[in-house]
């Protein structure tokens, strides 16, 4: 089964997007719409630490998988750590084909922006873009 456009990892993340959803009592939120892609992120924190991270997204399988991967990896970390999130890294690890860099950069925007919204009101993210 060669030439599969999706890696095992992308397939697994896409198939089980456990972090898809919303958080009623989010400490921080962000919503971006750009180039047809839509991403919402919500974090619930205990102090600086992300307890729960949820996403919603409208886009291709790579974007959805990347969003799920982000949520999985940042729970338990400091919200400010999100500011260091890099599209380049996830492009490599999933991997994501080069022609989809644009939409992963939109995800990067959303993630970093969520990181910057530490300790602001739950709606703060909304006008990031």
């Amino acid at each position, binding site marked *: 089964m060669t030439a599969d456009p999706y890696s095992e990892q992308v397939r697994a993340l896409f198939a089980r997007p456990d972090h898809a959803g919303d958080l009623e009592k989010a400490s921080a939120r962000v919503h971006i719409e750009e180039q047809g892609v*839509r991403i*919402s992120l919500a974090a619930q924190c205990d102090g600086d630490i992300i307890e729960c991270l949820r996403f*919603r*997204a*409208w*886009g*291709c*399988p790579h974007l*959805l998988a990347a969003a799920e991967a982000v949520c999985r990896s940042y729970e338990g970390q400091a919200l400010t750590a999100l500011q260091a999130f890099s599209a380049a890294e996830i492009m490599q690890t999933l991997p994501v084909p080069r022609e989809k860099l644009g939409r992963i950069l939109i995800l990067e925007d959303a993630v970093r922006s969520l990181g910057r919204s530490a300790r602001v009101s739950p709606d703060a993210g909304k006008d990031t873009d």
Partner: protein
Amino acid sequence: MSNSTDIVYLDYAASTPADPRVVDVMTPLFGADGDFANPSSGHVAGRRSRAHVERATGQLAELLGCREEELVWTSGATESDNLAIVGAARYRADRGRHLITMPTEHKAVADVSRLLEKKGFEVSWLRPDDTGVLDPTILEAAIRPDTQLVSIMHVNNETGVIQDIEALGAICRERDVLFHVDAAQSVGKLPLDLASMPVDLLSTTAHKVYGPKGIGALYISGRPGCRVEALIHGGGQQGGRRPGTLAVPLIAGFGEAARIARSEMQENHAHLRSQRERLWRGIRDLEGIVQNGSESHAFPGILNVSIEDVEGESLLLALEPLCVATGSACNSKSQEPSSVLRALGRSDMLAQSAIRFSFGRPTTPDEVDIAVERYRTAIARLRDIAPGRAA
């Protein structure tokens, strides 16, 4: 599909398996115990191979209602389309350099027309209405004194829309313009009687009608003035119209496929219709779902639907291992919304969510039910994951 009972294949418009009877005809012809000789050879073995070719030519001619000498074997509909359009354009270059076709044509026709455009031909691209159907009066108005050729497909490979070949062809004949029909999707599935139809050139390919891949044919009407210049030159086979060693097993397979298609056309048509209706019944209540293409001119082997606010690529992956298509098979690598659906006036958003389900002889109601369930589940899941739009 071996070893994957999970796979449900509803992509018969992209390719069909060879019918078991076709496989039985072909298999013995490959090896040393079969009639493997070159059918152009004069010796006993060559004559035996030739007999298979002659039988198959007769079988395809019967299916199409034409004479045997009006058929040329090619490698498939892509080559047939090229031979028809480039060949006729070159042969009739003195007559003028105007072609007429549609933006909803298969790429083989569209790309070759675009190429001729670059080489100094003028091409009129006629638009269908928003159900995909071409109004014959639009064709009538587009024909000019320097029009050489009109190329319009019979059944659209993405939407299944059937064009009124009789009416369009009658206009061409009246104005003495050659009429080419890409019938890759309709041969063996809808009745054709070329002896009585106003069609000059007609392309077909075996692998869409339960024959093997790699063999097709071009019908070139025997009426005066209908000639094409060869694309490929060489050993003189097929009267020089398309040389190269004839692929005897494939030709024999196509012949058998034609024989079967002819004798079972009615029951196959009824079967396709009921599968298509079953699928549509199962999903038509979904919010924001629409059929792409005219209901009244629909070929029952294809159902193309779009749905609001769902991303197409994720939909396709969520449907796995259901095998369906987005645009046409050959487009499926590209990310662009189908030009066929855009020509029907669909928004980019709706066009990109389009899924083409296509049915075949082996399709069972159970498979259709699985497709219904997977489609509904996938839509629900993706809508669930998607965020609302910003106010």
